[in-house]
């Protein structure tokens, strides 16, 4: 990243290869919109080029790039204010190697995740899928580590309830699978 910051744009390709898939999944799981997610990934790397001078040597790059990713999405929603519906094609794809029950559980879990309020969904995605530590997430969202832990616990409780509801009424689950998108809030420093 220091090379990118100091003007070597070619080095950005290495970062792109390393982070495009995690970022795509961050956005896909958060918004349920693959097309938008791909656009936002490109936007993140454009912002890295524009704001590379704001990267401070010695600070974790992973936290910095997710700060940019969050802000890119916030700015996008600020301009457009969309409420993206759940897209059935974004549900987990069928893996023939898995037993049918496991497949069904996987789909229900994905729907339950999409039902969570966006802030809780984002916390779970950052901690579980992006494998950020609680202290990294705390800095990212602008709160204390203990607050992150409490929110994670509450998010998991809510996920469990949503999962149970879907299990008991799978027939109309697609209707209730719409993501709970609230206008995201910008926290932490501006990038």
């Amino acid at each position, binding site marked *: 990243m220091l090379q990118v910051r100091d003007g070597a*744009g*070619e080095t*950005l*390709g290495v970062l*792109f290869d390393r982070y*495009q*898939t995690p970022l*795509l*999944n961050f956005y*896909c*799981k958060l918004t349920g*919109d*693959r*097309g*938008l*997610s*791909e*656009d936002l*990934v*490109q936007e993140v*790397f*454009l912002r890295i*080029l524009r704001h590379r001078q704001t990267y401070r040597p010695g600070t974790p790059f992973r936290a910095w790039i997710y700060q940019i990713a969050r802000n890119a999405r916030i700015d996008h929603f600020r301009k*457009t*204010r*969309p*409420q*993206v*519906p759940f897209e059935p094609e974004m549900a*987990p*794809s069928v*893996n023939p190697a898995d037993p049918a029950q496991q497949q069904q*559980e*996987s789909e229900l*879990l*994905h729907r339950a*995740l999409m039902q969570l309020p966006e802030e809780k969904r984002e916390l*779970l995605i950052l*901690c*579980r*899928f992006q494998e950020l*530590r*609680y202290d990294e997430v705390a800095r990212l969202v602008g709160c204390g580590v203990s607050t*992150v*832990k409490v929110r*994670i*616990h509450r998010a*998991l*409780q809510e*996920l*469990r309830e949503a*999962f149970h509801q879907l299990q008991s009424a799978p027939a109309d689950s697609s209707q209730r699978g719409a993501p709970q998108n609230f206008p995201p809030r910008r926290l932490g420093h501006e990038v």
Partner: protein
Amino acid sequence: MKCEQIAELLPDYLQEALRPEQSKIVEQHLAACPECTEVVALWKKLATLPDEQPSAVSRERFEAMLHAWQSGRADNLETAKRPSLWSTFQWLRSPVGAVAWSIALLVIGAYVGLQLGSTKANSQDLAALHSELAGMRQLVALSMLQQQSASQRLEGVSWTRREDRLDPQVLSALKHTLRNDPSVDVRLAALDALIRHSAQPQVRSSVVDALQEQQSPLVQVALIDQLVEWRDPQAAQHLEKLRQSPNLNPTVRQRADWAISKLN
């Protein structure tokens, strides 16, 4: 230990950040508490959700963006300081540099020819020379718009910006690029290039036509914004048609609603 007390330890347990004795306390509780066990099981199941893979054009889009950014940065540096001999040489080695070099040679050759051939170089000859140069620039643009690489097509679009007035053939190529180019970045660049020539009658109609065919929400929103900026009286009916399309991205539909309210 009760669930409330375990709740303080559970998040760290999930990230395997507890000391062994604390982990043991949590595991003893889990053995007796189906609810907390279920939370842990859900946490583990989350990791089994499949990942999305980037599309094949993702890397190409990135490279086009990087190339466009580097070109813009090079232009800025050029205006800030005089380029070195080496950087001039490097630039001349690029395809665009080679074409520019050829044009420069043509100009010098024509000038010398005119000076040697006749001391009465008249304005007609100069006008013909200008026209020929404009034609060559347009040929370069047309050729680059048909390249495989998105970055080269982006350069082709930027060549069209050098013209005061678009040749019908270049206009047609830009319209085609706006409608059909696989890269969103190139389509957006084509839109920008067309907007610069909005005084030409066909440009506005091409933007309206492109609206119905676009699939990318980014391009659709850019087109809608442009129609609002032009205050095109015919745009409202096209926007209405667009918003009735099935499978329209909700963001675009919302933008179309906003645009219709602005235009009415």
